[in-house]
């Protein structure tokens, strides 16, 4: 069943897109990840122009992060003050990310930039996840549980000025690191079409030393607003948000996430995490391979002015 996408200007198979939305939704429900870092490369493999994939993907991340953020706000596991501070950085990052995106489109390097950034992040994250899940599997076999250690010593982070008290996180730290993390994640969000939880969560745990109980909720809270802004800006600046594509992805994602959440409570986490890690690594390698092998045609064409 083919459907013509009005912005991407190409026909796609509805069932394939829907299936992808469901699969990524399932994984995001199971692991609590946004899934943007999986969906954008998948869309590009399918032949969707990278700019449209990134722009549209940001709307899908809005949907999945709203669901997650509501659940966490009910549990009271959001540090709104910290979320607000990182959001301030995120807004600035997203605006500059859109600017960089535009510049890359203009000089014809956007496809390369998206590929390179994905290769770097997918391989690093895939490798880290793989190591972590293997460690967890080994620990489970040995009959112990691993916890993320919260080291007592103070890092240089705590020596910075402009300190502020965050009651919910039980922290008294400078606002500079949260703003910087928010900025970086906002920029990635605009260029990669992701929420950026995979950067935000380790950043909050290891750099800011926030309690793990509030990290996911706070990160989701920030992602909702940053990706919403990113989606609007991609619409305004690049006209690359395809509503039809986004709709199919969101519907598939929402349904998939329901099953993912339920499956997560039944299945062994470490094994599935290892599987996800393998998938992420594979995609990183696939994208990287395309960068280093000689292309079939050295030349490519692009319309200068978008059609009116």
């Amino acid at each position, binding site marked *: 069943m*083919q*459907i*013509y996408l*009005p*912005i991407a*200007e*190409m*026909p796609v198979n509805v069932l394939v897109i829907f299936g992808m939305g469901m699969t990524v939704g399932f994984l995001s429900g199971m692991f609590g990840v946004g899934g943007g870092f999986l969906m954008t490369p998948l869309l590009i493999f399918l032949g969707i122009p990278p700019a449209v994939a990134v722009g549209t993907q940001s*709307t*899908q991340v*809005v*949907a*999945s*992060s*709203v*669901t997650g953020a*509501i*659940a966490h706000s009910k549990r009271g596991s959001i540090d709104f003050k910290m979320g607000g501070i990182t959001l301030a950085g995120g807004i600035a990052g997203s605006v500059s990310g859109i600017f960089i995106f535009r510049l890359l489109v203009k*000089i*014809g*390097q956007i*496809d*390369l930039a998206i590929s*390179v950034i994905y290769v770097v992040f997918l391989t690093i994250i895939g490798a880290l996840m793989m190591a972590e899940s293997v460690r967890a599997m080994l620990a489970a076999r040995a009959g112990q549980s691993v916890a993320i250690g919260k080291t007592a010593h103070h890092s240089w982070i705590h020596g910075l000025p402009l300190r502020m008290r965050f009651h919910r996180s039980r922290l008294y730290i400078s606002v500079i690191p949260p703003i910087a993390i928010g900025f970086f994640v906002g920029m990635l969000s605009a260029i990669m079409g992701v929420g950026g939880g995979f950067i935000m969560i380790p950043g909050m745990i290891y750099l800011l030393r926030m309690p793990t109980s509030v990290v996911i909720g706070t990160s989701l809270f920030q992602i*909702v607003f940053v990706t*919403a802004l990113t*989606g*609007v*800006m*991609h*619409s*305004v600046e690049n*006209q690359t*948000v395809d*509503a*039809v594509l*986004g709709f199919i992805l*969101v*519907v598939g994602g*929402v349904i998939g*996430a*329901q099953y993912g*959440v339920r499956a997560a409570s039944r299945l062994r986490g470490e094994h599935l995490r290892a599987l996800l890690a393998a998938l992420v690594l594979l995609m990183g390698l696939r994208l990287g391979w395309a*960068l*280093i*092998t*000689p*292309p079939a*045609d*050295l*030349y*490519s*064409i*692009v*319309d*200068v*002015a*978008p*059609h*009116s």
Partner: protein
Amino acid sequence: MTKRALIAVLLTLAGLAFGGPARADQLVTDLSEHKIAIKSNFTGTQILLFGAIEANGPDERALNRDIVVVISGPARAVTVRRKARVGGIWINHDSVTFPKVPGYYAVASTRPLEVTAGIDVLQREQIGIDNVNLGVPVAQGMDGSEEILSPDDEKDFLKALIRNKRRDKLFINDPGGVVFLGQTLFRVTVDIPANVPVGLYTATVFLLRDGQVVDAIASPLYIDKSGLERFLYRFAHGDALLYGLLAVLGSAAAGWLASAVLRER
């Protein structure tokens, strides 16, 4: 149409066909459609062009007569980029921009173009993609500064442009695609792919005799998105801010709905 008007039209047509004493052969052509609508189920289409040659005088023979059909889409600037290996990875390097490239260009003929007419005629009438004036190309280096390329290099870019457009099925060459049904009637079907750009197209039919253009008829063909596709495209480009806000709010609503459903379980 009233009967009287119909008779008037028929008389005029008859006059055109048989009136002038020493007039050469004339074309009568039409397209199966003058408007192609791109709807949500659009996966490409075919267009049928048919026509007849109205011969004047009994001594006019069908020998050495050729029909060439050219369908050309709206022209716009196209940049051709060449990749080069930098630090182990392949990146876009030099580029050449051609200012006036038809978004779609199909040529079909009764015989291959080379044997149909001389290069001077083909160039004058811009028949065949090699003979279309694409404007003065501008070459740029990777840093965006203007470059001067050797003619050989420039030719490589031009060849790459045509090759890429052919691969996308947007440049079509169909020698032998025009089929005669008997002495005077002819027809040709031309593929319109799914990725076709929207806009005003021109379908031109040339009648050649002994390598010279005897008659030509151009008719318009309009390709546009329609229905929801058209609405969304117009909305996204015309009122981008509202479109973006609605897209994001719609997604947020879907996320909220999902959490409401989740809670009921």
